[in-house]
């Protein structure tokens, strides 16, 4: 239970709730309220990982979401292992297992560290300059080696058992950030009747107040003010408080995405609790109070474990009661580190402070710290550090008035707190496409012109003093709620202000030392300089060439330093070098949370017909057709697909087949102008179609290519029952609605999708009439009374029925349309009745074969979006007399009437047993050299049991003039000879359908 670096008192941890975690196989102890980072530090474990490129030992840098170094694999049990967790954001819980990454064989002894010694060979962009010879080595040797070296953790290797939730919310005011500015904004906004959401990434609301030990607000210690404020806010019914929730993406029209972590901090999450929840919030107004990030100082070897941010040292001491070292040296160019130093000293730690600034710039703060008994060196630079797996000293030297570096001195220490100034967290503001402005007074970019209804308050807007943050936050919250109000807060003065620090002056050779800018991607100051020297002058180029700011922390601690270094190297002011545009997400977000419940069966809905269950019960195999799951074939025991389809096809021509056509798209076109509308939408003419009759219709896009087809029945002068392809139903309705509403709104027509309303049962074959005759009432089925291509309203088994005499097989056929609820009962009755004739249910595969035997096209199979009616042999259907219909004008374009277009033909293979692949290409001469001239392709190809041989349909250039010619189709290896035929293989005269 020993925690060597745990302070005896203080902190917000719960000492009554001890816990243990396992780190690299070692059991370490801590308390509820710890993060993994604070727990590791409490146990003296600074070394927590190896860097990306040089495999340098690295420790915890920060206490927040800007952590670049301490990335751990966290193991929460089988399937619950994931890499690259920031130790500072993982709440410790009992039994948690964590491992460090990117080392072999171990964290302490890592072979990869040889890269550190070879570093002179690996400057920024080195890989662009080498690994090119010999060429074959790239794929075989160089790239695999680079890849193996890159990456940090290991990707999970098994599916994720956890559940993820989505929630959509609207609110009047969304406040991002629960620090002083955000809390004040919430106080103001929630005092109105507006709905307010406050999201904060931390486990507790409070932000920097959680480790503020000395300041007072309105006379009370900050912690007390915080507790009271949170209590007040919890009592506000119009306010939703979301701790552990990061606003990560700011999209158009104030659409903000939040990720709420629900379960990872619990030792035993309830089984029904989602792990994370994605919130998509549409806010009228947004208040950004996202704080600021501290910058490290840039000097040689500024990356050793134990070197961390000064404010983070303060947070570990005050919030987590952990002293990150026994002797801590603070190195700073600003005031805030003095508060950290004072708190460290007060906690009993041995403290020294080195200030880059001259004495006169920091006299009061220095004097106060000295008065506490701490050594304070002003006007000093940092030359480097000593130690390896833990810092053991900080090498400093005075700088005189001429910027000359004096004698070095090493300050012994086991921890260093760096403060190189602060950078406002403008990420979300930038994502919202607001403009940023460089503010020299704080050496940072601040929000300028907003592009959406958003305002910034507090440190994220560049305001640092505590009282000003509170005042500004309150005003922002009030204004966002539409009730402008002001309130002043009496907060004690906080230490703010810093002198911008770039690469610190040094007496060492800056060209050869490693002064890190981006810790995670191992980018050094000299890398930035090299990029500039090589002509990469835009900051975007510098970023991409050096990879600075491209790591998982997205450069929160490094971007400003990199930009300033580039500006220095270019001799340009910072605004001219530019800042990068921030992209979502603010911090990495799990794929699973973004996906939420859209997994497995909820990935896409499955549409099933009323007959689906019947088919499934009989062992049908199914295929996906758009969203539908259709019965593909009905194998009997021992039958394979080939045998089943052959049997089904023979039955449909020999006796009677039963087919579920319910997925056909169906649209009712109704109104006085229905026929006129149909005339405009289809190539056919509808004016003379009698009620009770059907016609096969073809519809074009305006570009002249076939969009869809289907049988259309005229039920009454003003009522058409239109059918479409299964996949085309929505497309056709959209197409019709578009023209009706936007081009011809004067036409009095209504369009209604009736796909789901009618089950369609196709009964096809010589025995079809006998099969249905006893079941239907109110219709004369005789050929004379009810010929092919007719429709009748009748009843079947008492149910209302639209009975179509149509055929997609070439046999006598009926399509029984009944309300979907009757679908299965009618199907079963027909099946029962048909037993006497050997009725055989058939699936989509047999349907395809049967129609191909008769040469009927399927849109999307024979056509591919580039076929005209003439191409597929349907030019005769075009109503010549019509002056116009959609697509007509395009059919006259030069290349649509040019000779040599592909035309629908049949193909018979020389070997009747060979079934070509659909998609096979056709050539005239297989001996041609490559590239060969292809004249067409096979669109449909089947074994036809009825023909006793294979058949195929193909689109072939000028095909109708090639009848009888021998051509060659590609097969798996080589070619097969085929003979061009008419695209019909059964009943060439089409007589059977009238039977």
């Amino acid at each position, binding site marked *: 239970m020993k925690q060597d670096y745990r302070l005896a008192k203080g902190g917000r941890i719960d000492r009554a709730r001890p816990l243990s975690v396992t780190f690299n196989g070692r059991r370490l102890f801590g308390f509820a309220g710890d993060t993994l980072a604070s727990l590791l530090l409490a146990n003296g474990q600074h070394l927590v990982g190896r860097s990306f490129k040089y495999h340098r030992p690295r420790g915890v840098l920060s206490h927040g979401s800007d952590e670049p170094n301490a990335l751990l694999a966290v193991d929460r049990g089988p399937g619950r292992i994931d890499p690259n967790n920031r130790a500072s954001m993982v709440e410790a819980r009992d039994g948690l297992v964590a491992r460090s990454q990117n080392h072999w064989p171990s964290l302490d002894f890592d072979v990869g560290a040889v890269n550190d010694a070879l570093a002179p060979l690996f400057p920024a962009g080195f890989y662009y300059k080498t690994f090119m010879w010999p060429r074959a080595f790239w794929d075989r040797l160089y790239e695999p080696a680079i890849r193996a070296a890159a990456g940090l953790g290991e990707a999970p290797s098994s599916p994720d058992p956890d559940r993820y939730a989505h929630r959509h919310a609207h609110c009047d005011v969304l406040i991002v950030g629960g620090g002083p500015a955000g809390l004040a904004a919430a106080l103001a906004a929630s005092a109105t009747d507006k709905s307010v959401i406050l999201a904060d990434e931390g486990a507790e609301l409070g932000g920097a107040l959680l480790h503020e030990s000395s300041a007072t607000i309105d006379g009370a210690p900050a912690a007390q003010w915080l507790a009271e404020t949170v209590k007040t806010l919890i009592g506000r019914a119009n306010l939703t408080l979301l701790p552990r929730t990061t606003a990560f993406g700011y*999209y*158009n*029209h*104030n*659409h903000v995405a939040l990720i709420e972590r629900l379960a990872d901090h619990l030792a035993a999450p309830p089984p029904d609790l989602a792990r994370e929840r994605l919130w*998509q919030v*549409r806010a009228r107004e947004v208040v950004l109070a996202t704080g600021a990030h501290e910058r490290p100082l840039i000097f040689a070897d500024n990356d050793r474990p134990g070197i961390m941010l000064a404010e983070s040292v303060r947070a570990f001491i005050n919030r987590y009661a952990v002293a990150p070292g026994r002797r801590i040296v603070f190195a700073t160019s600003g005031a805030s580190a003095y508060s950290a130093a004072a708190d460290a000293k007060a906690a009993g730690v041995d403290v020294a402070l080195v200030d880059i600034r001259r004495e006169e710039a920091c006299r009061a703060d220095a004097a106060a710290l000295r008065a506490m008994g701490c050594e304070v060196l002003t006007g000093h630079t940092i030359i480097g550090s000593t130690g390896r797996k833990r810092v053991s000293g900080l090498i400093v030297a005075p700088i005189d008035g001429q910027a000359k570096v004096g004698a070095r001195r090493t300050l012994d220490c086991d921890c260093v707190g760096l403060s190189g100034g602060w950078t406002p967290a403008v990420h979300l503001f930038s994502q919202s*496409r607001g403009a940023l402005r460089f503010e020299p007074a704080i050496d940072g970019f601040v929000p300028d012109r907003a*592009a959406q209804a958003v305002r910034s308050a507090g440190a994220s807007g560049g305001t640092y003093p505590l009282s000003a943050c509170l005042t500004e936050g309150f005003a922002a919250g009030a204004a966002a709620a539409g009730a402008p109000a002001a309130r002043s807060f009496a907060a004690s003065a906080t230490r703010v202000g810093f002198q911008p620090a770039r690469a610190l002056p040094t007496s060492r050779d800056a060209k050869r030392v490693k002064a890190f800018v981006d810790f995670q991607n191992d980018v050094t100051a000299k890398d930035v300089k090299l990029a500039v020297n090589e002509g990469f002058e835009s900051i975007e180029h510098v970023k991409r060439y050096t990879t600075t700011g491209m790591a998982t922390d997205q450069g929160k601690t490094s971007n400003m330093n990199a930009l300033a270094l580039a500006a220095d190297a270019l001799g340009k002011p910072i605004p001219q070098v530019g800042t990068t545009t921030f992209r979502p997400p603010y911090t990495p977000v799990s794929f699973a949370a973004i996906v939420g419940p859209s997994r497995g069966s909820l990935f896409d809905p499955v549409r099933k017909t009323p007959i689906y269950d019947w088919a499934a019960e009989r062992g049908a195999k199914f295929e996906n057709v758009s969203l539908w799951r259709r019965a593909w074939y009905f194998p009997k025991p021992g039958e394979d697909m080939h045998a089943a389809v052959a049997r089904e096809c023979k039955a449909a021509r020999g006796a009677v087949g039963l087919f579920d056509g319910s997925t056909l798209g169906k649209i009712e076109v109704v109104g006085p102008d229905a026929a006129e509308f149909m005339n405009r939408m289809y190539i056919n003419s509808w004016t003379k179609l009698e009620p009770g009759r059907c016609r096969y219709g073809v519809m074009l896009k*305006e*570009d002249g290519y076939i969009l869809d087809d289907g049988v259309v029945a005229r039920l009454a002068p003003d009522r058409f029952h239109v059918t479409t392809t299964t996949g085309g139903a929505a497309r056709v309705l*959209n197409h019709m*609605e*578009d*023209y009706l*509403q*936007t*081009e011809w*709104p004067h036409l009095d027509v209504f369009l209604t999708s009736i796909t789901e309303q009618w089950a369609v049962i196709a009964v096809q074959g010589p025995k079809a009439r006998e099969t249905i005759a006893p079941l239907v009432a109110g219709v004369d089925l005789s050929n004379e009374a009810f010929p092919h291509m007719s429709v009748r309203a009748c009843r079947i088994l008492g149910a209302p029925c639209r009975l179509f005499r149509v055929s997609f097989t070439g046999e006598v056929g009926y399509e029984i349309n009944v309300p979907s609820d009757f679908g299965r009962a009618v199907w079963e009755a027909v099946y029962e009745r048909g037993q006497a004739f050997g009725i055989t249910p058939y699936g989509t595969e047999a349907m395809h074969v049967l129609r191909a035997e008769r040469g009927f096209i399927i849109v999307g199979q024979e056509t591919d979006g580039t076929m005209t009616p003439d191409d597929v042999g349907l030019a005769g259907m075009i109503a010549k007399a019509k*002056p*116009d219909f959609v697509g*007509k*004008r*395009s059919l006259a*374009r*030069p290349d649509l009437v040019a000779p040599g277009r592909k035309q629908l033909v049949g193909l018979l293979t020389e070997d009747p047993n060979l079934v070509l692949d659909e998609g096979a290409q056709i050539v005239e001469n297989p001996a041609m050299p490559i590239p060969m001239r292809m004249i067409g392709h096979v669109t449909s190809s089947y074994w036809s049991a009825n023909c006793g041989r294979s058949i195929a349909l193909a689109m072939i250039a000028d095909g109708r003039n090639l009848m009888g010619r021998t051509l060659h189709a590609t097969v798996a290896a080589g070619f097969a000879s085929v003979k061009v035929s008419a695209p019909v293989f059964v009943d060439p005269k089409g007589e059977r359908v009238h039977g």
Partner: protein
Amino acid sequence: MLLIDCPYCGPRPEVEFRCGGEAHIARPAQPADMDDKAWAEFLFIRSNPKGVHAERWIHQHGCQRWFNALRDTYTDAFIETYEMGTKPSRLPDGRTTR
């Protein structure tokens, strides 16, 4: 995700809508009278401005009605939505019409 103000239903999220491309390209009354060039321009040529764009939307998963919108294609901000067959209060080039 855009927030789109359907003239019939009010503001709704983009996923309820389908965009129908540039607005105010009326289908010619007599296509047969047009030469190939004019017809191709009707079919394919689009103004595609960086700035204010008049475009068509349908509230597909709502009232299923088509309407027009002016949107700035650089900021993605909607300037207004208006019913089919009507003109916007300002034209894409900034002139006002009403």
